[in-house]
């Protein structure tokens, strides 16, 4: 209870403080807020682990009148992942976002926005109310857009504006869906919606909401806004944008389909969602192959990696029958969410280090940097292992569970996507890796404090450790997971 609320409140307060207090005090306060929120998220996870999913009805008002918050395994896990990424981002931003480097305006904007984003994310992770989720989503969008534009460069602003355009269209669709479902059922609480009496209008509501969320999740073909935005933002921002922001809308999508309106799922719909995911895997991979800038490659790989998660729709519960363990595929997708978050953040932070070191992220400029900045190179390599889905990383666990589901449910065609995507990832990560580990240094880099270098390394290690010690997270994700995850849609 307290943990859950403080997870929402602390970042907000910290954000306010960061705005209000003078520049001197900003950084300490922000870091303090980060630390406290991190502690809160971990505490929440622990309490979920010890005594199951936690439900809070705000002000004692029960739904439909009041708003319910519920921290289940998935929400808490995402919370912890977010907290870790945020902490890392903060540590990196300590160097990257200091006024002398980034300019006073940027560094002023960054901390409040980051904390605000965090609060919004936590809100989305635990909300059970569609409209509440909408607000959270909007808050995320706005802060994210602001973060993209924060540098004030022309290309950044254009990218931000395009992002905003897509995002607003998405949120309008989502909002329309919310309105319709409320009009039909007079409630927006997910649990209550699950128990509703279905009406034909639900189809439209679900369709609108899904479409809206797809845009925000940057699923193919709506991914186009993501690469420019993520590559235009300053590295710490892109880390958050890539690792966390899409996960929020994706989580809502999952909650919608698996918890609110599972009975609406039709094979063709599930196939379409997964199909788009598959296309995203291929499309993102190929385009990543064609990029010449590190951050663009990483951004497109995000498009591809998010694609995997959509395979959960047809595969979830697929192996419930054949296997002793249920919900393998569903949990696999969740592992992908977590693992990708950590790895992707690590990659962007590494890219940030390179930019800080040589002032560019072109592959031709980062050549041979592994020699000067070994830890960063190592971090990038480790993170790529997760993205490739090679053992023993979280990416592998995810791929393994999803593939098992695919075979067990006889839909082994999806396994092609998983395997092919892995190979594609190998292809597009090969160039940056060989460039970074090249023998001769292209540009002599500025020295980087190793405290900063260590940050992405830790994240990357975590992404591998998640796979290496996957049994506890696996059980954790089972807490309060929807039945459909086990039985399939």
């Amino acid at each position, binding site marked *: 209870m307290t943990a859950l609320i403080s997870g929402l409140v602390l970042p907000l307060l910290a954000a306010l403080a960061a705005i209000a207090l003078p520049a001197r005090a900003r950084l300490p306060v922000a870091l303090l807020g980060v630390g406290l929120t991190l502690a809160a998220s971990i505490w929440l996870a622990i309490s979920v682990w010890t005594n199951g999913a936690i439900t809070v009805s705000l002000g004692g008002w029960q739904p439909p009148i009041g708003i319910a918050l519920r921290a289940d395994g998935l929400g808490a896990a995402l919370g912890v992942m977010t907290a870790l990424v945020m902490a890392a981002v903060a540590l990196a931003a300590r160097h990257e976002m200091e006024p002398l480097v980034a300019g006073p305006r940027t560094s002023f904007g960054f901390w409040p926005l980051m904390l605000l984003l965090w609060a919004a994310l936590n809100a989305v992770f635990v909300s059970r109310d569609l409209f509440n989720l909408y607000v959270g989503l909007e808050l995320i969008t*706005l802060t994210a857009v602001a973060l993209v534009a924060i540098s004030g460069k022309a290309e950044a602003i254009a990218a931000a504006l395009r992002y905003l*355009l897509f995002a607003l269209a998405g949120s309008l669709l989502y909002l329309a869906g919310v309105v319709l479902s409320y009009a039909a059922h007079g409630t927006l609480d997910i649990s209550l919606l699950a128990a509703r009496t279905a009406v034909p209008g639900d189809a439209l509501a679900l369709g609108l909401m899904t479409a809206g969320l797809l845009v925000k999740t940057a699923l193919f073909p709506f991914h186009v806004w993501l690469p420019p935005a993520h590559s235009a933002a300053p590295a710490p921002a892109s880390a958050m944008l890539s690792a966390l922001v899409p996960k929020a809308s994706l989580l809502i999508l999952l909650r919608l389909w698996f918890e609110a309106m599972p009975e609406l799922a039709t094979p063709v719909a599930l196939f379409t969602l997964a199909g788009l995911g598959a296309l995203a895997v291929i499309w993102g991979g190929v385009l990543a192959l064609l990029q010449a800038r590190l951050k663009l490659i990483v951004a497109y790989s995000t498009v591809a990696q998010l694609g995997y998660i959509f395979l959960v729709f047809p595969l979830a519960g697929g192996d419930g029958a054949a296997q002793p363990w249920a919900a393998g595929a569903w949990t696999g997708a969740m592992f992908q969410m977590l693992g990708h978050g950590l790895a992707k953040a690590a990659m962007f932070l590494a890219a940030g280090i390179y930019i800080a070191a040589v002032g560019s992220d072109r592959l031709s400029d980062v050549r041979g940097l592994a020699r000067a900045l070994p830890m960063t190179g190592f971090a990038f390599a480790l993170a790529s292992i997760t993205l490739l889905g090679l053992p023993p990383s979280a990416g592998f666990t995810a791929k393994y569970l999803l593939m098992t589901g695919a075979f067990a449910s006889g839909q082994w065609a999806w396994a092609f996507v998983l395997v092919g995507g892995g190979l594609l990832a190998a292809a597009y990560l090969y160039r940056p890796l060989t460039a970074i580990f090249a023998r001769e240094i292209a540009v002599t880099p500025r020295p980087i404090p190793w405290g900063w270098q260590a940050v992405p390394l830790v994240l990357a290690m975590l992404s591998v450790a998640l796979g290496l010690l996957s049994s506890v997270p696996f059980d954790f994700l089972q807490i309060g997971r929807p039945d459909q995850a086990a039985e399939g849609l």
Partner: protein
Amino acid sequence: MSLTVFAMTGATLVGLGVYGLLARVHMLRRIMAFNLIGSGLFLFFGAAGARGAALDPIPQALIITGIVVALAASALAVGLVVALARSSGTACLPDEAGDT
């Protein structure tokens, strides 16, 4: 009766907004279109909430929240457009600057 009118009006607004959002290139127009859709939806929402004997308080609460959110969004958007116009001299997205 009146509710239907509200609902219809809301629907119309949404329709207009969608057209504007898709057909117009100038970002300010798109922002206005966005607001049109938003207000259309809220109108519809209110109408939906006003059905039945007892007046449902929730839609109103939500509409107000929604309006605030939309306002914030528009503010940010306009700010960005201004910045864009300053930096690139046009209020259109780079790839669309040519066509009107």
